[in-house]
C-alpha cells in the first residue's frame, strides 16, 4: 500500500499533531468545567436574586470567553490536520472516523456557539430564564462536544464495529452503536470530562485564593471557593474512580500501553505496582537488565487494579513482543509474518482484479481473509517497534496519578478550613491553592501524553501504524508548518495569558 516511508516526515507530522493537541488541551478542559461552574453561579443568582452573584457569574464568564476563543481557534486545526497531515488515515478510516466528528459539529458545536452568543450578549436582550437556559446549553454543548471527540479518539485506541473492504482498500463501519457503547469510549468520556471539571475547580479556587492572599474581593472569593471546592471535591473523587476503571479497560484493550505505563517487562502472577521508580535508561526489550535503578513496589497491586484479581497475570512488554505460550500470547514476530501475508495477498488481489483474473483474485482474497486481523502488523519491520516510549509513558502516568490524589486532599483541606472559617488565615494553604492551578494543567497534559504516546506506533491500535496513516508530503514541508504553528501558538498564548492576568488583576469589581 505504501512504497517509500519518509520517517522524518512522520516524526514532524506527529510533532505537529502533538503540539496542536496539547495546545488545544490547555483551553478545552477549562471550557468543559468552567461552563458548568458558570451555570451553577448563575443558577444561584437566579434563585437568590442577589446581584453580587450576577457580578460573580459575569466575572468568571469573562475569563471563560477569553479561554473559549482560543479553544475554538485550535479545535479547527485538529479537524483540518486529519486531512492535511494524515490524509491516508482520512481515507483508510474516514468511513468510521468522520462520523463522530461530523456529529460533534452538527449536534454539539452548533449548540455551544449559538448559546454562547446569548450567554455573552443576551443579558439585556433575553429574559433571565432564557439567559440561564442558554448558559446551561453552553455547558451541555461543550461537554457533548467532548463526548463525540472522545468517541472518535476512543475508537482509535480500541477499534470496533468495522471491517476492512479490500475493494476500496479501507475500513468500513459495520455497527455504529458498537462505537458509541465501546467501554473505552465510555470510560474515556467520563474520566476526561470530569478531569475538566476538576481543572476548572482548581482554576476558580486558585484565582480566588490569590484574591484572599491579596485581601481583595474577599466575599467574592469565598463564595467562588465554596461552590468550586464542592464541585472540585466531587469531580476529583470521580476522576479517581473513573481513572481506575479506565486502567482496567486499558489492561484488556491495550495491554502494551499498560505495560509501558508500568514499565513492566516480565509479566508475573501476582504483579506488583511500582508506586515510585527511577527507570534504567539503558533497558531494552528482551535484555536481562533491571528495568529500574530504584523502585518502591506494592506487591500484587497491579494485578488487583488491572485484573481485579490478586493472582491475575498482567503481561509485560517482553511477553507481548516475544510471545508467551503459557499465557496464550502470540509473538509480535508471528503477527508481523501474518500481517505481511495480508499485505501481499491484498496486493495480489488488487492486481488480479485489475487484470480480470478472477480465480487468482479469489485465491488471494481467501489468503487475505485468513490474515486480515494482522494487516496493520504487516507494515512493521521489527517486533520491537510495537513498544512505545516507556520512560515518558511511565513518568507521565505517575505525575498524573500523583497530582490527582493530591487534588483530592487539597479540596478536603479547603472544605474543612472553609467550614471552620479559617481559610483566609492560612496563607500557606492559599499559596498551595494558587500553585495547584498550574499543577492542574500539568496533570491534564500528562494524561494525554499517557494516552497518545502509550499507543505508539499505532494511529489505530493494531490496525494502522502512523507510518502508513501519514500524508504523502516531504518532511521539509511539514517541518515548516510545525514552526509556523509553533510561532502562532506562542504569540496567541502570550496574548491570552496577558489578557487573562489583566482581567484577573482588574477583578470582579471591574464588571
Amino acid at each position: 500500500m505504501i512504497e517509500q516511508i519518509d520517517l522524518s516526515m512522520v516524526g514532524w507530522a506527529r510533532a505537529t499533531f502533538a503540539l496542536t493537541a496539547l495546545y488545544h488541551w490547555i483551553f478545552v478542559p477549562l471550557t468543559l468545567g468552567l461552563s458548568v461552574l458558570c451555570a451553577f453561579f448563575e443558577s444561584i443568582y437566579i434563585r437568590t436574586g442577589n446581584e453580587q452573584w450576577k457580578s460573580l457569574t459575569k466575572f468568571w464568564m469573562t475569563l471563560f470567553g477569553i479561554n473559549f476563543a482560543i479553544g475554538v481557534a485550535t479545535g479547527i486545526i485538529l479537524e483540518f490536520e486529519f486531512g492535511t497531515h494524515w490524509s491516508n488515515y482520512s481515507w483508510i478510516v474516514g468511513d468510521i472516523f468522520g462520523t463522530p466528528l461530523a456529529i460533534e459539529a452538527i449536534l454539539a458545536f452548533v449548540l455551544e456557539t449559538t448559546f454562547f452568543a446569548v450567554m455573552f450578549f443576551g443579558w439585556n436582550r433575553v429574559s433571565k430564564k432564557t439567559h440561564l437556559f442558554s448558559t446551561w446549553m453552553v455547558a451541555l454543548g461543550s461537554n457533548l462536544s467532548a463526548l463525540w471527540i472522545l468517541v472518535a479518539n476512543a475508537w482509535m485506541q480500541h477499534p470496533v464495529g468495522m471491517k476492512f473492504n479490500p475493494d476500496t482498500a479501507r475500513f468500513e463501519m459495520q455497527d455504529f452503536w458498537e462505537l458509541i457503547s465501546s467501554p473505552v469510549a465510555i470510560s474515556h468520556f467520563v474520566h476526561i470530562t470530569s478531569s475538566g471539571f476538576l481543572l476548572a475547580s482548581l482554576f476558580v479556587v486558585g484565582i480566588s485564593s490569590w484574591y484572599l492572599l491579596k485581601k481583595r474581593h474577599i466575599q467574592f472569593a469565598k463564595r467562588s471557593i465554596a461552590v468550586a471546592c464542592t464541585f472540585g471535591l466531587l469531580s476529583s473523587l470521580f476522576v479517581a474512580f473513573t481513572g481506575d476503571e479506565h486502567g482496567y479497560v486499558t489492561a484488556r484493550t491495550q495491554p502494551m500501553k499498560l505495560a509501558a505505563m508500568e514499565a513492566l517487562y516480565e509479566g508475573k502472577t501476582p504483579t506488583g505496582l511500582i508506586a515510585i521508580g527511577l527507570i534504567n535508561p539503558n533497558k531494552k526489550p528482551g535484555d536481562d537488565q533491571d528495568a529500574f535503578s530504584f523502585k518502591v513496589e506494592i506487591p500484587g497491586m497491579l494485578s488487583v487494579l488491572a485484573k481485579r484479581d490478586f493472582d491475575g497475570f498482567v503481561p509485560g512488554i517482553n511477553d507481548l513482543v516475544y510471545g508467551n505460550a503459557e499465557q496464550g500470547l502470540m509473538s509480535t514476530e508471528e503477527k508481523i509474518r501474518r500481517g505481511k501475508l495480508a499485505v501481499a495477498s491484498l496486493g495480489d488481489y488488487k492486481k488480479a482484479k485489475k487484470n480480470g483474473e478472477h480465480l487468482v483474485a479469489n485465491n488471494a482474497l481467501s489468503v487475505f481473509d485468513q490474515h486480515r486481523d494482522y494487516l496493520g502488523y504487516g507494515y512493521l519491520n521489527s517486533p520491537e517497534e510495537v513498544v512505545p516510549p516507556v520512560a515518558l509513558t511511565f513518568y507521565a502516568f505517575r505525575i498524573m496519578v500523583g497530582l490527582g490524589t493530591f487534588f483530592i486532599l487539597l479540596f478536603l483541606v479547603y472544605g474543612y478550613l472553609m467550614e471552620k472559617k479559617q481559610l483566609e488565615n492560612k496563607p500557606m494553604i492559599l499559596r498551595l491553592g494558587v500553585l495547584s492551578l498550574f499543577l492542574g494543567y500539568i496533570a491534564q497534559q500528562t494524561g494525554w501524553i499517557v494516552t497518545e504516546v502509550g499507543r505508539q506506533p499505532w494511529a489505530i491500535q493494531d490496525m494502522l501504524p502512523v507510518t502508513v496513516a501519514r500524508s504523502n508530503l516531504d518532511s521539509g514541508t511539514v517541518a515548516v508548518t510545525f514552526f509556523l504553528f509553533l510561532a502562532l501558538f506562542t504569540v496567541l498564548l502570550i496574548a491570552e495569558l496577558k489578557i487573562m492576568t489583566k482581567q484577573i488583576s482588574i477583578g470582579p469589581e471591574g464588571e
Partner: protein
Amino acid sequence: MFGSLDWSTLQQLWWFIVSLVGSLFVFLTFVQGGQTLLLTITGDEDEKTLIVNSLGRKWELTFTSLVVFGGALFASFPLFYASSFGGAYWVWIAILFAFIIQAVSYEYRRKPNNFLGQKTYEAFMFINGSVGVLLIGVAIGTFFTGSNFTLNDYNLVQWTHPLRGLEAAFSLFNLSFGLFLVFLARTLGALYLANNLEHENLVAKLKASSFNNLLCALPFLLYVLISFVLMDGYAVNPADGTVVMEANKYLNNLLQMPLNLFLLLVGLVLVVLGVMLNRFTASVRGIWPAGLGTVLTCLAIFFLAGYNNTAFYPSKVDLNSSLTIYNASSSHYTLTMMSYVALTVPFVLAYVSWVWRQMDSKKLTIEELAADKKSY
C-alpha cells in the same frame, strides 16, 4: 427508512446536504465581508465599534458552519477530504491560518494588555475576510478546473505539482471565482450591517457600499458564468465510472438539469434584488432576499459540479483519478447512519433561528455598547 435507499441515492442526498451546508457558509461569510468593510467605510471609532460588535455576535455562526462543512465532508466524502486536504496542502493550511487568527480577534481586540494591539487584530480580521475567502473561492474553483493529483490502487493521493495546491491560484477562473466570493461577501456584509445597526450615517454608507461591491463582483461573476457556458468539463461514464472530457459539459448540465438553471437564475436575481432594495428604497431588509439568493446560487454551483454524472473534484493529470460523488463517498452503512443524524438539522436550524430572532429583536446602538463592558 434510509437503509432501504440504494447507495447512489444516498450519495446524491449527501451531496445535497454538503452543498446546503457549504452554501449556508458562503451566505454567512457576510461576517468576513463585513470585516473587510472596516477599512473602507468607517468614519470614526464609534462606527468601527458598531460594525465589529455586530459582526462579533455572528462570527461564530460562520465559523461553526465551516466546521460543520468540514465534518460533513469528512463523514460523507472522505476521499475528497483525504485527497484535497492532504494534496492541496498549502491552500488548506493558508485557509486554516486565515481562520485561526480570526477566532481570537473579536475577543482580544479591545481587551486591555492584549499584547499585539488593536490594529493587529483588525489586520487579522481583514486577512480572514480577504485572503481567507479568496482562497476558499479558489479551492471551490478547482471543482471545475481540476487539480494535479493521482490516486493509486489503494486510493491514496499523490500530488504532482510542487506548489501543493497554491498553483490553483494561477487559474483565471479560480481567481475570478475567489474574487467574486470576496466581493459577494462584502456586499452581504454591507446588507447585513445595514439591517442590524441603528446609526443613520453609517447605515446610509452601508446601503451605498452594498451596491458598489455588487458592481465590483459583477465582472468576476460574468467571467465565471461565461466560462461555465464555454468550458469543457469532466464527465463520468455512468456504466463504468471512467472520466472523459466533454465539450461544454457545464452548459449541458444546466440544460439537462433545468431546475438547476432555474435555481442559479433565481438566486442571482434575488441577490441583485436585495441590493437594489437597499440602494433605491428606504428599506434595510435587502439581506434577506440577497442571503436566500446566495444560498440558491451556491447550491446551483455545487449541483453543477457534482450531479449529472460529473466529477466534482477532477484530476487534470489523470482523468480516472477524478473524484465523483460515487467513488469518493462513505459506505452505504455510514451514509445511512449519517442520514439519520441529518434529520436533526432542521431542528438545529430552528433553534439557531429562534435564538437569533430573540437576540436581534432590537437593533444594535452605540449607547448599548457603551453600557456593556463585554462589548468587543
